[in-house]
């Protein structure tokens, strides 16, 4: 592990410690730091801005109530993601928006907008390839897409992805591998686009 990661972890650890002993300032910093990405994650699971905000509010009030009874952690983000997922599943269970045990559930129809980052990432051909890939990704069953997001977008390790999604590590690995296999077609397609532009 390199130095930057060590210092990042100890910073998180200290922030969490301060919050646990009732430091409101630390609590507010945790909120400011993570509210945005939690919302993004929650909205992808349940595209309803009010319900997601309710879940986040509930998550943070529970966190404060429970502060003295929380474990130490070096990854607050991981902790929060896991709790938010539980809240959102509870909220949507009543609405029957999705079923956590169903493998190939329906695409919820997420509106497709390219973020600034996508625009910043290399130009021209790559843009097309990225768009094609993203379109293919959005067609994946929601659980596969969720695992892919947690791993490659949010940067969680495989065991953390498994834990957040409440499955064992091998199942999470299989889930991601299966999605990658499904995308093979699109990879071939990308290669063709690439070759086409290159040779003609």
């Amino acid at each position, binding site marked *: 592990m*390199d130095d930057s990661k060590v210092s990042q972890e100890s910073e998180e650890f200290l922030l969490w410690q301060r919050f646990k002993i009732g430091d409101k300032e630390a609590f*507010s910093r945790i*909120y*400011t730091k993570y*509210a*945005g990405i939690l*919302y*993004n994650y929650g909205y*992808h699971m349940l595209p309803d*801005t009010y319900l997601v*905000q309710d879940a*986040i*509010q509930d998550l*943070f*009030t*529970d966190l*404060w*109530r*429970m502060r*003295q*009874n*929380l*474990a130490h*952690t070096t990854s607050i983000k991981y*902790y929060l993601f*896991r*709790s938010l997922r539980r809240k959102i599943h*509870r909220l949507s269970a009543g609405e029957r928006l999705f079923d956590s045990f169903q493998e190939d559930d329906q695409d919820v129809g*997420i*509106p*497709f907008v*390219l*973020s600034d*980052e*996508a625009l910043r*990432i*290399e130009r021209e051909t*790559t843009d097309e390839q*990225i768009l094609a*890939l*993203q379109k293919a*990704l959005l067609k994946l069953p929601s659980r596969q897409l969720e695992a*892919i*997001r947690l*791993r*490659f*977008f949010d*940067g969680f*390790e*495989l065991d953390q992805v498994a834990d957040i999604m409440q499955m064992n590590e091998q199942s999470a*690995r299989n889930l*991601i*591998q299966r999605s*990658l*296999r499904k*995308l*093979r077609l699109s*990879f071939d397609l*990308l*290669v063709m686009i690439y070759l086409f532009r290159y040779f003609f």
Partner: protein
Amino acid sequence: MNYSKFTTQDFLMDPSFVQWAREGKNDAFWKTFIANNPFKSEEIEQAKLFVNAVKSFPLFELDAESQESLWERVEQKIEEETPVVTMPLLGRTWWVAACVLMIASWLGWQTFKKDNSNSVTYENLITATDTKKSDLVEFVNNTDKVLPVNLPDGSSVSLKKRSRLAYFKNRFGTTKREVYMSGEAFFEITKNPAKPFFVYANELITKVLGTSFIIKAYPNDKQVNVSVKTGKVSVFTQFEAKRSLKLNSNELDGVVLTPNQQITLDRQELRLSRTLIHLPEVLSAADTEIQSFEFDDVPVAEIFAKIEKAYGVEIVYDEELLSACKMTASLDNVPLYEKIEMICKGLGATYEMIDAKIVIESNGCS
């Protein structure tokens, strides 16, 4: 690691590769690898492209204003709860009873206390409507038995002694179904989301789409109480600012109660607090397979999940801390609070009721 045999997929499953593709860690190593293995460049390009595609997915952002108001709501809520009331450890049953006693919740808290002259009665409610008195249909139960009442929409009401129920026959069921009551009654309402059902009882308005519940609203009581048996109900007070909005929407807004929850209105302070009912029952809608509470070396998280589902309650605890805890217990035919208490005893933990949630206080198990 023999990367020279890796496929695109293999690279994407490799933690070190993903770290490099995402954050540029170990850049020197991967640059050297590519230089030494030019035949792998296509796979690496594809894998990197994949990571970039996921990383640049559209982001759903919480605008600054929502983020701030959400934080204000969190702050308001935690301030209402501090300092948390601690109950003295008396006898067991007393302790359970004490836990059931509400810990004030911020829900529906009205900033201005209304003085006593503002208290709303059954008579006020009926005379306030602009409908002809000849259209009034009223049931009064002066007997000691329960009086069953059938309403025009097929709903039924069991009216307890010293209780009254009324509706206006020309208005009932036109766009909504409205009744007025005083005393205590059990309502079983037929489902009709297009015509919400309202019960006006003292200062409290209960709104349902189709469900069963009990209301206690005696004229001289200090409290009004609504508890839910099945389905969902929403409640708000006569003084609620958005009252007319709630009276005219076809959705359940305001404080929403689910089965085994109750709301109590303090009529003087106009404070609403939500708690679990005294003896929560297993929901009839819950799967039959979860009705067994025999556990043999089962993770505590699983036991909690089962209880949450069976009773429709929320149990708040730290999954990380309790992840190592397993338990063998036979909790069949034991009421909810006793189940929780037995589990807490096994864990060396305590629990608290906050806002109809069961909050477990534990230091984990080694």
